[in-house]
């Protein structure tokens, strides 16, 4: 447990000054949205598709007020509630798509890299082709297919995102597998008679899966933008299925030209803030974990008091 804590704290303890502050800001921003996502039903005053309370209709395109902090939109919905619920949609879609990516991409890359041969070559070719293609265009094509078949639901959009991010997971895992399978401990395991399945599960999996979290953080910010872009083009999630910022922004464009700023500003800000938060976290991690970027400290601070510092952490 302490090890995990230390690992989590590492980016903070390793950074100094402004870099640390940027990381902290990123973590805080992301955390706020994650909290909104988890506790949306309690934090949001109304449902995402609720247009009246106790039989009294909300105002249409009502300006921000005491009862509706961010105003109401054309559909009589409460903008604040939709922004909060939107966090849930955004994070759900991203988490789902990353989950799908991991569930499909990691075993695929592992098996492909481990066994090699022509199936591996074909997979690499296909994944490289998908990876090279503009991902947003691909997401458009896939979401047409999926929203057509399963409707404009969270799952459909999450799957569209999965389709465009999977090649990255595949490539990373496959390449790690290819180099790791030559390692002595894997050779040794095979020598004592471990089957391919065991080698992959026991020895390789733990090794290759380490690169996944960094990739996931990097993709998360991009996924939020792609989701919003699809929503903006009208290919994403519909307002009665869930609250989605891109969709709301699209509908709000007509309002913005007529001086109604609140229906567009808040969903727009939400996207900007969440993506900023995720990017800051990603950059912060990159800056501390990537050895070529780490600031070299001239003073050997940690050497003499190693045991005590780990005590202090507790």
């Amino acid at each position, binding site marked *: 447990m302490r090890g995990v804590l230390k690992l989590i704290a590492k980016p903070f303890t390793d950074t100094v000054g402004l870099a640390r502050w940027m990381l902290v800001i990123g973590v805080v921003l992301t955390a706020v949205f994650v909290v909104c996502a988890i506790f949306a039903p309690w934090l949001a005053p109304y449902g995402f598709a609720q*247009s*009246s309370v106790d*039989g009294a*209709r909300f105002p249409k395109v009502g300006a921000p007020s005491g009862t509706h902090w961010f105003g109401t939109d054309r*559909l009589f919905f409460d903008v604040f509630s939709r922004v909060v619920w939107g966090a849930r949609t955004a994070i759900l879609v991203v988490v789902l798509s990353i989950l799908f990516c991991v569930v499909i991409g990691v075993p695929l890359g592992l098996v492909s890299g481990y066994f090699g041969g022509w199936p591996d070559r074909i997979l690499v070719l296909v994944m490289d082709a998908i990876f090279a293609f503009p991902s947003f265009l691909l997401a458009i094509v896939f979401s047409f297919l999926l929203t057509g078949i399963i*409707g*404009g639901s969270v799952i459909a959009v999450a799957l569209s995102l999965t389709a465009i991010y999977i090649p990255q997971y595949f490539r990373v895992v496959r390449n790690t597998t290819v180099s790791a399978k030559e390692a002595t401990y894997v050779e040794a395991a095979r020598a004592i008679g471990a089957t391919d399945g065991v080698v992959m599960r026991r020895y390789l999996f733990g090794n290759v899966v380490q690169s996944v979290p960094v990739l996931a953080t990097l993709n998360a910010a991009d996924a939020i933008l792609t989701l919003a872009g699809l929503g903006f083009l*009208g290919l994403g999630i519909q307002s009665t299925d869930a609250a989605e910022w891109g969709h709301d922004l699209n*509908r709000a464009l*007509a309002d913005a030209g007529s001086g109604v700023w609140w229906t567009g500003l808040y969903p727009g800000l939400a996207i900007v803030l969440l993506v900023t938060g995720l990017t800051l976290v990603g950059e912060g991690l990159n800056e501390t974990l990537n050895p070529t970027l780490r600031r070299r400290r001239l003073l050997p601070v940690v050497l003499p008091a190693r045991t005590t510092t780990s005590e202090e952490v507790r």
Partner: protein
Amino acid sequence: MRRQNLVRLGAVALLAGSLAACGGGDSDDGDGGGGSGGGGAPWILGTTDSVTALDPAGSYDLGSSTLEYNLYQNLLTVPANSSEIVGDAAESCDYDDPQTLTCTLKSGLKFSNGDDLTSSDVKYSFERSIQIQDPNGAAIYLLGSITSTDKDGLVTLDEGAIETPDDTTVVFHLNKPDTTFQYVLTYPGAAAIVDEDVFPADEKLADEEIIGSGPYKLSQYKAGEQAVLEINDQYTGENVGTSEQVFVKYYSEPSALKLAAENGEVDVAWRSLSPTDIADLQNNDAVTVATGKGSEIRYWTWKVDGPVGKQKAIRQAAAQVIDREAIAQDAYDGTVDPLYSIVPPGYAGQKDAFQEKYGDPDPAKAKQILADAGIKTPVDLTVGWTPTHYGPSTEDEANELKRQLDESGLFNVTLKSTEWEQYQTIYKEGAYDLWILGWFPDYPDTDDYLSPFMVDGGFFQNGYQSDEANKLVDEEQGTDDQATREEAFGKLQDLAAEDVPFIPSWVGQNTGVYGAGMEGVEDTLDPAFIFRFWLVSKSS
């Protein structure tokens, strides 16, 4: 070659004039070309409609016909704000009997390239449209009275269906009594007259090469971007345009079109601004929002053979609850009008049948209807809508309908949406109990609002079957006696209100937004949705 002509025309002078005009207006008479039109300044029409093809053989949509009405002549046409059809290329068309229509052409008609327009061109135009069989063309769908379709879907012109006894006479022999045929002749997608020496017989002509005999001719076309029309010197009819040139600029987003109208980048914005935009532009002094009667409708269709929709009392109860005024106001900011019959006001024989039968929205009455039929409330309803095909405001309407039905306490609505392609497949399969559809007429006749909806479950296949409806449609199509037709129309509408195979929701207005110096825009905004460029002018 065309382009060189243009450059000679004094393009630089025009350019200077037009750019200045964008800013505020400037006098510019340097249009060098000695056209028959007046000296009106060029003006720019902005639209979000898209063009399928400028060859009539390949078009069956409003974006294409907007240009085609100005580029070609039909035998007959619809004058602005009138339901009385008059001659265009024809002096007149008259029924000898309900199966024979004889048209006499005006004399001295010419195409813009100088070729004579004769009865042979007319016959050729029909023959080639049918021969080409373009799935996007209206000919194979609207000319059923002079064609037959074999089992593979191949449409052929009936032997001897079109006769040309002399250069100015065309006789149509119909395969069944059909008095709506004369209305079809006003629609360019089915009946525009093309030059037989220019248009190939078995394939579509490229858009930029088309030649017509209308008041304007095409001088430049860039698909999805812009079209430039110039006055046609050869045109001898009455609809002479005043502006030497008309630019049509195509937009993909209504919000972009609205900004363009506000900034004076276009002189007229026509189809389709969002309700919010129109409401906002009404408060803008720099532009004028003009509205005319419309003909585009939305309606909610019941799955009449579905588990819920099969109960007439449920269908009637919903019709009793729906508040169309509120839909028009809340979902469309009052930019549409409530519709109380599937036929919009202004058409011969129209009556507000739903209004007469149900009166004002009344949940108590609806409750009674359901109670009388012994139906337990609340009734669970699955209501379908589609996000993009009918514009973003469909979302607002679906939500408003849900609120109204839910608030009555009689229904429990679940909204479901899917994209257009999947939508049309699954509504036929019964995925929704009630779903929204739209309609836009092909020709200005009441029949076009009744026969597609009431005969054998309508084109949407909702399972509605009424022998009486079928009989009434045959009756009105088989006579050219106006009184008999109107009576049949009335009965059909009453039948729809009683059986409720669908619930009419609203009829759109024909809205145009124009800037300073524009005249005549109001004159052309009518239910026929023909934008008559010749009526509009810009003062210089």
